[in-house]
């Protein structure tokens, strides 16, 4: 037991008292849980977690420290971090430092020594909640009120906040120049998506979320990629519009996570907020085309409504076997594929890497047709 006092308060009145770890201060966000057993550094640095206080359900976090390679963006992106026990030491030949120092260095407020399972059960039962994590104010009531007054995830256009400021070309470390020019919309894109696209033979230009279709098309893409990202897809109207334009042109489009939801909306579908979301590395997804089950990495609070498939031009390709939610679809005629989960994994199983190759095949086919 070490560290100063810290308190986590949820909007519905639940208050936990624990110990501060990482930066002292205060953080506000939607409290969610992730069930992955390892890969906390990837989780921390995943921009999809912007605006969220992430609880890891596995009790020992920080065991192998942090390193410069296992990052999904330049810095931790979570609003706050909740663990049962934070390791103060790092045991790994790749470690460059300890987790608590890393969080402190990047200004992330964390809390440890709380009953994270009780918190998880609460979120599971009552749904994701807004919360405040503080190492300064211990008055539960005041914090609860503050949580209640904080910004809601529904309607929050967070992609705009985490996207890159200007376009840039992804320099692949694998050496070979890409065969296909891909414009990747950055709604909070994970680095590993870029690595996977690069490895699959794409020459990727990353563009800000607000890039118009005309601007993107001026780059002469063979295909467009719509990245993962935080928050609600509905307010990301600019990207929904752009996506419609790409589809109208028959360009190959591949969406992941928020990108998938945006595509769903662009196709005329609806999205809705899940009770407590899917966050972890063990979700079974069935590929309806092959019958194979993929164990997938997931991180999303919203989902595409299956009413989309009432329209014959949209085909559901993947389904979540836990709750039956939509995990992927394609267009019957157009080169459009989309998955809700994270085929780039990181953290999580590599069962779904094939989707990057599928995107490339679509671009190949499209190129030969053009």
């Amino acid at each position, binding site marked *: *037991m*070490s560290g100063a006092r810290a308190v986590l308060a949820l909007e519905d009145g639940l208050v*936990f008292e624990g110990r501060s770890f990482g930066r002292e201060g205060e953080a506000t966000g939607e409290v969610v*849980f992730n*069930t*992955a*057993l*390892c*890969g906390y*550094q*990837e989780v921390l640095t995943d921009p999809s977690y912007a605006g969220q206080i992430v609880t890891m*359900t*596995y*009790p*020992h976090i920080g*065991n*192998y420290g942090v*390193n410069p*390679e*296992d990052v999904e963006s330049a810095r931790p992106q979570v609003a706050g971090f909740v663990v*049962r*026990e934070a*390791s*103060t*030491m790092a*045991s*790994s*030949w*790749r470690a460059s430092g300890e987790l608590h120092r890393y969080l402190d260095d990047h200004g992330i407020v964390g809390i440890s020594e*709380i*009953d*994270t*399972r*009780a918190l*998880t*059960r609460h979120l*599971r039962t009552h749904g994701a909640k807004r919360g405040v994590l503080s190492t300064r104010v211990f008055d539960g009531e005041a914090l609860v009120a503050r949580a209640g007054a904080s910004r809601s995830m529904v309607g929050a256009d967070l992609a705009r906040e985490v996207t890159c400021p200007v376009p840039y070309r992804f320099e692949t470390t694998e050496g070979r120049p890409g065969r296909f020019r891909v414009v990747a919309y950055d709604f909070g894109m994970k680095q590993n998506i870029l690595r996977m696209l690069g490895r699959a033979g794409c020459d990727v230009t990353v563009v800000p979320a607000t890039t118009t279709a005309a601007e993107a098309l001026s780059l002469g893409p063979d295909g467009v990629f719509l990245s993962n990202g935080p928050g609600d897809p509905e307010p990301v109207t600019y990207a929904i519009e752009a996506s419609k334009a790409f589809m109208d042109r028959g360009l190959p489009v591949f969406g992941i996570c928020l990108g998938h939801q945006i595509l769903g909306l662009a196709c005329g579908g609806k999205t809705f907020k899940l009770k407590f979301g899917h966050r*972890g*590395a*063990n*979700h*079974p997804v*069935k590929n309806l085309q092959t*019958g*194979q*089950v993929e*164990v997938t990495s997931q991180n999303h609070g919203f989902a595409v409504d299956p009413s989309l498939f009432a329209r014959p031009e949209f085909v559901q390709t993947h389904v979540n*076997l*836990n*709750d039956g939610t939509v995990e992927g679809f394609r267009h019957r005629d157009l080169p459009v594929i989309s998955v809700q989960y994270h085929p780039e*994994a*990181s*953290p*999580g*199983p*590599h*069962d779904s890497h094939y989707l990057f190759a599928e995107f490339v095949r679509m671009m190949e086919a499209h190129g030969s047709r053009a």
Partner: protein
Amino acid sequence: MPRDSSIRSVLVIGSGPIVIGQACEFDYSGTQAIKVLKKEGLRVSLVNSNPATIMTDPEYADRTYVEPLTPEVLEKILERERPDAVLPTVGGQTALNLAVELSRRGVLDRLGIRLIGASRRAVEVGEDRRLFKEAMGRIGLDVPRSGFGKDLAEARKIVDLTGLPAVIRPSFTLGGSGGGIAYNMDEFEEIASRGLDLSPIHEVLVEESVLGWKEYELEVMRDRADNFVVICSIENFDPMGIHTGDSVTVAPAQTLTDREYQAMRNASRKIIREVGVETGGSNIQFAVDPRTGRMVVIEMNPRVSRSSALASKATGFPIAKIAALLAIGYHLDEIKNDITRVTPASFEPVLDYVVVKLPRWAFEKFRDASPVLGTQMKSVGEVMAIGRTFKEALQKGLRGLEIGAAGFTRTDLEDGRIREKLLTPDPDRIFYVKRALDLGWSHAEIHRMTGIDPWFLDQMQQIVDLELGGAAPHPRWGRDDPARQPGRPAAAWPPLAELPTPLLREAKRMGFSDAGIAGLTGSTELEVRARRKAEGMVPVYKRVDTCAAEFVSHTPYLYSTYEQECEAEPTDRKKVMILGSGPNRIGQGIEFDYCCCHGSFAFKEEGYETIMVNCNPETVSTDYDTSDRLYFEPLTFEDVMNVVELEGPEGVVIQFGGQTPLKLALPLHRAGVRILGTSPDMIDLAEDRKRFSALLSELGIPQPESGTATSLEEAKAVAGRIGYPVLVRPSYVLGGRAMAIVYDADHLEEYVREAVKASPEHPILVDRFLEDAYEVDVDALGDGERVVIGGILQHIEEAGIHSGDSAMVLPTYKIAPPHLQTIRAYTRKLGLALQVRGLMNAQYAVKNDVVYVIEVNPRASRTTPFVSKATGVPLAKVASRIMAGRSLAQQGLTRDLEVHRTFVKESVFPFVKFPGVDILLGPEMKSTGEVMGISEDFGIAFAKATEATGVTIPTSGTVFVSVNDYDKGGVLPHARELHEMGFRILATRGTAEFLNAHGVPAEMVYKVNEGRPNVVDFIRSAKIQIVFNTPLGRESFYDDGAIRKSATVHGVLCVTTLTATAAMVRAIRALRERAIDLVTLQEIHASAPV
């Protein structure tokens, strides 16, 4: 895809007797498999030689064969049953090897029977290290450098490549038997020769040492559609070099990043595909160099395993059950997760707790065995503990081991031996690591010496810091605490009354037991408990749910922790709690778990909610399916009492789990807990020598004369009064430990001085030893009004051999009817006098027409399952119904039970794992398991039991006879019979002269020190098929030990008592004269009363 409709019937192969490396985890997996296959409507037959298993209860399979697991018997069973398929993947390596052998012999093809779960090729690639290495090469995975040698010269060439230290593993042996690590060429030659001998194909693998590397295991599953999931990752606390069965292991992996973990997962997926496990579970082991991260594949087992049982318990995912469903064609996504009921089995369980498995060894039983841990497994049991942190789980596990440690602490360590103990792992090592941390040794140094990952050391340091910091409170329990000076013992805490509440709370959160805190504060466990409860510090119970609370759990599978929210949700139903038997050990194994399960089943049938408390992950009792509620907790007063207070059961059943719950009877009783069945006072009476003797004299039942001595002089006086030989033992240990038979004053002196150090605090007990008496075990049931005898088992070995080790036969075969009447009468008297409600076991000796009572235990015995199988009456269930208030009469049981065939129990010993240990039997129990032989003929039943232990009885050839003078007359008729059956007889000089003089031709061979070739040379070169050697008695042991050891190592049948010799000769004759008869339990018990 739904089930494969072409499979309508299946034979499941069990794993046979409990041996080191193959314990009750296979009863757990086999039972699961049979249950689910039956539920799917298949006709299931089962063969397993182990009667103490739940799986062999007649209500599980349709056809149950308790028969030897030999290819010959299996072939006969297959011919009789003609199943569509054989499932060999739930019966350990034994079942896999048998299936491969049946396939090789063409039996499966001839009968048109499929192997499901694993193909012959997959088994071969998994087991044959050469094929495995080639397979790994094909899929681009790294393995340690290695090569195979068929003889010593080849082995030497390979070691030139791998360098020293090198690991030597014989091919195709169980649990790594006969392997080792060689640090120099002398050791290399020794281990390589032994390995070549032990390998059935005379081959050893010599391998680059990855000693000290991090060791991991993944439990994985695959279905026919190539869906693949990892059920659990396991990280070994003890690094490579210590068999995983002897390692402390932790789930999930603690020190792998996602990148490394996924590399391991990807490799596993490739491996299970390449090896060709189409459906089912596999265990895959990896080593990782802690300096560079280089990952190498160590091995894979294409079947359920000890680790998969652990993984099932650790995650709540029933691997064996799912494997059985996959084997008959289902896909993972077609199977529901029992715990969530809404999600499919095609996912990867996640944990929100830490699981620690700790091995339990039995070196105290094998004093000559080296306790050093290596690549050959030596532990006999294990406990699993669940906590929210590693620290909590570790401390719970250590107290669950029942080795006298209240947690991560022991006070009997010698500071001067720390270095040695860290460098050379043995069962004490973990406590020496603690001591080194107490004394401020650096983690780097401890890591260098032990290979234990610094993360684990840091966790343990936190426990040490709390202990030390408690003495001098410091806000962060810092490392620079002045209290921690080298040479200083762990500091004492302030008295309990002054102990700060936050410190007490923190200690509980770290897994300190009340007893441990009592030790630190100089108080008692009960005082700590009172203080803790006064402050509202009680544990909460969390659920094991496969999904880290993401979905609702419908299964009350619980563990305690000190946190905020309790999920136990006790019901207000009528309920009983059953205490399990903890880790397997010699003398307390699967038999007791069997009884606990029966207790649970019977109480359920009686309308009770059943609550199981146990900490042994291998068992059926800790399957969440067995009882209504499962508390995976150590069996200590504190942990049990906490559950009692939460659940409020009507009563607690303590008579099924052996000594472990029995020890808790009085403390629980004093705490106001109702003990069901026989009263704690009567249990105490039976255990207390003085009270028991008084009862016997009152009842007029004779017992061997005895006395108590607190010094050598007293001991001599007592022995003089009683007359030699005497049985001596310390009064403070149970289960036959340190027990000896001494024949004269010199030996008595030696024993008292060296073995037990008698003192007023530790008196020794001296009993008259009834040499050459017949001994019997009686299992009976009492309801307070009536006693019904379940069975009288006669020991085949004469008195002096522990009843757990002796072969036994039911019904008796050499006891005169009047004595049987006396035995029955005494048992009734005793049962009524002790007011037995439930099970009782009594042991008697018959000598010179006097029946003596040796001991009475008003509880389940090791033979309860055996008698239940033989009679068809489930004694433990009957006992449970008695406890639930139904009398024997109400259950229709008013007459003693009878059997209609001959049932022989034979014991199985772990000697091959302990080179150098004499195989002689004595008053101290050494066997790990048992088998049953059934026939209408005694000879065949005995032959079956013997063969079921893994030895073949030769019906012709050469025997070696060497008996002490005392036994010479006795052995003569047997030698004559062997001669008449055409055996050639070799004998040592004295025996040969005696036999020849009495008209039995015998050739003289040298003893070991008389010249060459001697008897050991003959054994080694397979020129002797049976050894009859009876050293029991007054004679010195000269070179008999060498003869027996070499027989053991070479798998030559070795008979060490005269009575067993007689039985063996009858067996040989029976095998020569008649075919073995096969019968299912269902056929035997078609008309059983219950």
